[in-house]
């Protein structure tokens, strides 16, 4: 999919779709358009700019701005985003500026793997046909990209997990996955920011706070990178 698609999403939002398949290049384009729309706002009453894996949804106040008023401008803006994005875009509105790929925020998140903190570690090891320590090593080896946030405040969808340990969701979701739990669902991994129901394979837990509601801050933002660091003992 070369030319981005621009569609009305009801009468209060517009979605720009760069691709229907997951790729780092498509995610780069979505993040780049979101950053561009923050740096140079659309003419219209914009309530939210929400980049996702390969798309951006722009939420409008329908009392002030109709979707038809922004479709053309969004088409034009989206078409200026290169197909293969050249490794730099502003990281967020809170820290404007152009960053090189090497300068992305990288978070190191300490994780206690297995045991009570990671009740599904052995199941993932069985899925992979390797030992539990090998699952930990493979999970902790990757530098993950924050493709998007969703599900809960501060919940980041991280990818991509090594295919050998990419166990599918549990057949029966848990009623309460503890805050800080680190899970795997296919080639995605993530940290539950608060205790909630969930179906991901829980392999460990961190004590790092993912979301601060009082400050309205999320530790992880779209485009950040994450590395998990096994805690010893």
């Amino acid at each position, binding site marked *: 999919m070369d030319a981005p698609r621009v569609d009305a999403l*009801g009468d209060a939002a517009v979605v720009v779709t760069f691709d229907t398949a997951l790729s780092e290049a498509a995610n780069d384009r979505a993040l780049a358009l979101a950053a561009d729309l923050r740096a140079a706002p659309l003419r219209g009453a914009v309530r*939210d700019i929400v980049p996702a894996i390969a*798309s951006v949804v722009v939420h409008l106040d329908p009392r002030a701005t109709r979707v038809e008023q922004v479709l053309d401008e969004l088409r034009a803006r989206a078409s200026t985003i290169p197909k293969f994005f050249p490794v730099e875009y502003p990281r967020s509105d809170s820290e404007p500026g152009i960053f090189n790929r090497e300068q992305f925020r990288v978070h190191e998140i300490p994780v206690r793997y297995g045991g009570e903190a990671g009740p599904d570690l052995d199941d993932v090891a069985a899925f992979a046909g390797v030992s539990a320590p090998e699952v930990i090593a493979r999970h902790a080896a990757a530098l993950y990209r924050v493709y998007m946030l969703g599900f809960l*405040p501060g919940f980041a969808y991280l990818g991509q997990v090594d295919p050998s340990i990419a166990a599918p969701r549990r057949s029966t979701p848990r009623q309460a996955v503890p805050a800080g739990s680190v899970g795997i669902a296919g080639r995605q991994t993530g940290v539950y920011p608060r205790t909630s129901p969930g179906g991901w394979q829980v392999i460990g837990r961190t004590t790092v706070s993912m979301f601060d509601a009082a400050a309205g801050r999320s530790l992880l933002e779209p485009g950040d990178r994450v590395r998990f660091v096994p805690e010893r003992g």
Partner: protein
Amino acid sequence: MGITVVRPGMLTTVQDGGRYGAQHLGVPVGGPMDWWCHEAANRLAGNGPDAATLEVTLIGPELELSRTTIAAVVGANFALTLTGSRSGHASGRSVAMNQAFLIEAGDRLAFGERTAGARAYVAFAGGVAVPPVMGSRATHVKAALGGHDGRALQRDDVLPLGATARQRAEAASAIDVPHLSGAAPDVLRAPAMLRAIEGPEGAPAAFWDAVFTISPQSDRMGYRLDGPALAAPGDQLSSGVTMGTVQVTPSGTCVLLMADRATSGGYARAASVITADLPRAGQLAPGDTVTFCRVTPDEAGEALAATIARLPPAPA
């Protein structure tokens, strides 16, 4: 000092216009299921559009006021009783829906039988003054954000009331709630018609022809729609959604996303209900039936303007 919850009702939450500005961090918007009634209640009570109201669901609460104030209840048709010795109605007197009235310090406002609609909004002059979280007082129970400790009201909760200079109720007569007027008891009602714009993943013809029933598995996050199974378009890459978006799951079941929806979803977006018809959607309860009618963005804009024009006048 403020509002004491004597009886919480089935699901009573503090709501305002919603929590915008942080959906990219996964923060859901929330807000009223029926924006028209929320805003009308605020206007009758003399409040601006950002004041917080109480959203009442199916079975209403009983509330005691520690301060004299103006109130208005707009939406689903409940029997309302005001009881208070100071105001000379110790045995209780009925008060009208959809109209401002005076509550004196010590009075109790009790919700009784409901005859139409699912949700009503209680506005007090000055608004419900719980502390804003990320710029909004809206309660999101699943994310435990906003409102009163991020949860539905419970017995003995005390909510602060905002300051107001307003001393008397202005409107003399009850307003008409257009999307509820003439609503018959539930069993006699024809399917509610919701106008919608076709979504980016498209809607099969069967979607526009179908009559759906709101499933018991429905809440402020969304309504599961029982009806014909649609051709399942399969999972999509997760992408943003709105209140009113109808998702089609891989099994062909439709889900109408409502106020507490997550910020994104991984299912095909068949259509999105237009803003003008979200109040009607917000008044539906399990067992109610619904159909969808395709409109253009242009028609949606005209419908919204007409819907706003039917609000009571904003306070001066």
